């Protein structure tokens, strides 16, 4: 009889199976097989058999490795140390097969051979290595040009969409910004010293293909200030092919578009860059020329106060190399957060607790209506002593 009757069920069906993948490694690596058998055990018990990790790491790094131990007795799980290395992905998850093959070779040597490709933050997750292997594995990774990402209370691995590599909408150089910022913040990524995690994600346009505003403490999203550019000839061509242009215009959330059968007119100041018309008519409509980024703060998942979506703190910022302004802004925010946050308080929660007013003042950002959907409904606002004396 199979040792993994429950997991075997997950080899069935048309979709490619992670169990099959695990079995491939289990077949050659007893260490990997132990993990597989523990997983089967979890399927039987309906409970995880991993317990809290002690602190593990590699020399000079506090982050990038997740310690993980089995809670099963040694006779059931002879290799209880199954740590994870979070390896920083190249910008936009582009790879040469050469680089990928090298990575596999290293991982074949030191770990289970399982890869979580990729983790939700963006890293390549090398899933499962004993403590003793962490340091040599790391060193060999570095030697082939890979480095660890973040984990714990540090700046986490960034991520970005493919942007200018294939997409006509990208308003910023996402790949370059990703790489540049990642290099700029190496120390903050690798050495946890903050109150909690801090995530930065970069999308080239408002489609936000890395869901930055939902998942990043700081989201950098490409945008433009002037009018969308409409190629009227191309619009008419779409119309000729039977595309219902009126319907597309009607979906514009701000009624900024009008189609008279010949020309698609836009009221530029009414366009909120929602991307709907660009997506519907990719050959005909393009972003404007005055490009930059919007910066949103505070996105995060559930813990502690429920999930937050990032909100606008800078409606428009120039985003040209070497990204000085953006880097300075991030540093200021990190410092302020570091000084003011409680343990395990994300930046969004800190701003909620102290108020945008306090945040904006500390960072030196001007309040603008783009930061809010609606002004406050309660009369509970503050006056600083200086303001009172001005009047």
């Amino acid at each position: 009889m199979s040792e993994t009757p429950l997991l075997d069920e997950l080899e069935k069906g048309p979709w490619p199976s992670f169990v099959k993948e695990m079995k491939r490694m289990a077949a050659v690596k007893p260490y990997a097989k132990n993990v597989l058998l523990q997983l089967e055990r979890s399927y039987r018990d309906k409970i995880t058999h991993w317990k809290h990790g002690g602190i593990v790491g590699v020399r000079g790094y506090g982050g990038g490795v997740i310690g993980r131990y089995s809670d099963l007795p040694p006779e059931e799980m002879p290799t209880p140390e199954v740590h994870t290395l979070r390896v920083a992905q190249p910008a936009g998850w582009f790879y040469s097969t050469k680089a990928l093959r090298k990575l596999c070779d290293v991982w074949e040597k030191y770990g289970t051979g399982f890869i979580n490709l990729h983790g939700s933050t963006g890293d390549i997750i090398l899933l499962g290595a004993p403590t003793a292997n962490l340091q040599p594995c790391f060193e060999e990774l570095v030697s082939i040009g890979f480095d660890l990402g973040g984990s714990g209370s540090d700046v986490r691995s960034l991520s970005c969409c493919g942007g200018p590599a294939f997409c006509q909408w990208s308003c910023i150089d996402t790949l370059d910004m990703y790489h540049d910022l990642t290099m700029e913040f190496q120390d903050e990524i690798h050495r946890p010293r903050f109150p909690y995690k801090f995530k930065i994600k970069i999308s080239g346009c408002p489609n936000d293909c890395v869901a930055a505003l939902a998942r990043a403490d700081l989201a950098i999203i490409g945008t433009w200030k002037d009018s969308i550019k409409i190629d009227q000839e191309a619009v008419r061509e779409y119309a000729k092919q039977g595309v219902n242009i009126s319907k597309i215009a009607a979906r514009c959330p701000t009624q900024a578009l009008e189609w008279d059968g010949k020309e698609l007119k836009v009221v530029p100041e009414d366009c909120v860059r929602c991307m709907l018309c660009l997506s519907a008519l990719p050959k005909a409509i393009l972003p404007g020329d005055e490009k930059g980024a919007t910066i949103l703060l505070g996105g995060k998942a559930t813990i502690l106060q429920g999930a937050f979506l990032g909100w606008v703190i800078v409606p428009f910022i120039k985003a040209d190399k070497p990204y000085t302004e953006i880097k300075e802004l991030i540093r200021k925010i990190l410092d302020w957060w570091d000084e003011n946050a409680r343990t395990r308080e994300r930046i969004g929660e800190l701003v909620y607790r102290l108020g945008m007013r306090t945040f904006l003042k500390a960072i030196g950002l001007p309040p603008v209506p783009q930061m809010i959907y609606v002004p406050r409904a309660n009369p509970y606002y503050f006056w600083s002593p200086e303001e009172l004396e001005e009047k």
Partner: protein
Amino acid sequence: MSGEKKYITDVGPPHYKDMVHPVLLKNYGKWRYHEYVAPGIIKHVSLNGEEVYMVRAAIPKIVSIYFVRELCDIADRYSDGYVKFTSRHNVEFIVTDKNKLEGLLKELKEKGLPVGGTGRSLKAIIHTQGWVHCHTAVIDAPGLAKALYDELYEYFTRDDLPGKLKIAIACCLNMCGAVHCSDLAFVGMHRKPPIVNDDIVSRLCEIPTLVASCPTAAIRPAPEKKSVIVNEERCMYCGNCYTVCPGMFIHNPKYDCISMWVGGKANAGGPPDFSRLAIPYLPNNPPRFPEAVQAAKNVIETWIKHAKPGERIGDWIKRIGWERFFTLTGIPFTDKHIDDFIFSVPTFRTTTNFKWK
């Protein structure tokens, strides 16, 4: 010896210029438009008139090194030794020679990798590690993902749904991934307060951090035993205390369950929205989680039947109203659907303008 060794650190990721297909680099920032060729295939055309086909295939997120090497083999044959992975963890082959498409598709088919996930299709499911590797996992996200995928397979390979369909699964309510802004999502949930192990708490945990970790202030210090006490009435089983302290054991297979969420989305075409509670309890039933799979199918099919073209699940619900959503899907409405956390009041219906069903 070790004193002499120089540790190289902070090298950062490989530089993208070495990783991006040369043709993409050549046309970098000069793209003109894209076109959906077929499910899974997008043609990108540059200002120079150059054309590139991105072919998207799904992978089981947790793979072996052999699998990766096989992907590399394919990429060497069809996309000049370059691949891209997407933010939803699909793989993409960058095909510059149109004639290679057919061969690539054939090989992918042979390897059992579904091609699709572009346009108005089921996208790759964002999921987390579950029992494969996480200590707080209530359910096994990879297993549930596989079970769902098998059932929803065809939707990945079609692109004629009313809108994109983005599913996410988190094995615990830390919600790694994108659960909180997905069209449909599952989250593993506890239903019993943690059991305090005073010995572990007093030895291993920082009491103030532990007390502060509780969103509902259900934990208070018990200095006499250097431990804590849980007010069970206030506990809603989030497990955050367990995340910060192993002495707060919260797993309980008898009661642990799965919840289902619907209607989230990101930024395009209007402000983003959170996923919202659809079903508070579904049995945690591995290996194939039939109840959860069925629950997803029910919502998806009701959506396909009733939504207008262009409407993602959330758009559709916004149009018809939540009262109608519960009627059409037959999902029972319970007190659990009504928010009672910090920002609850703005979710209360402050008007008589509603539908009867």
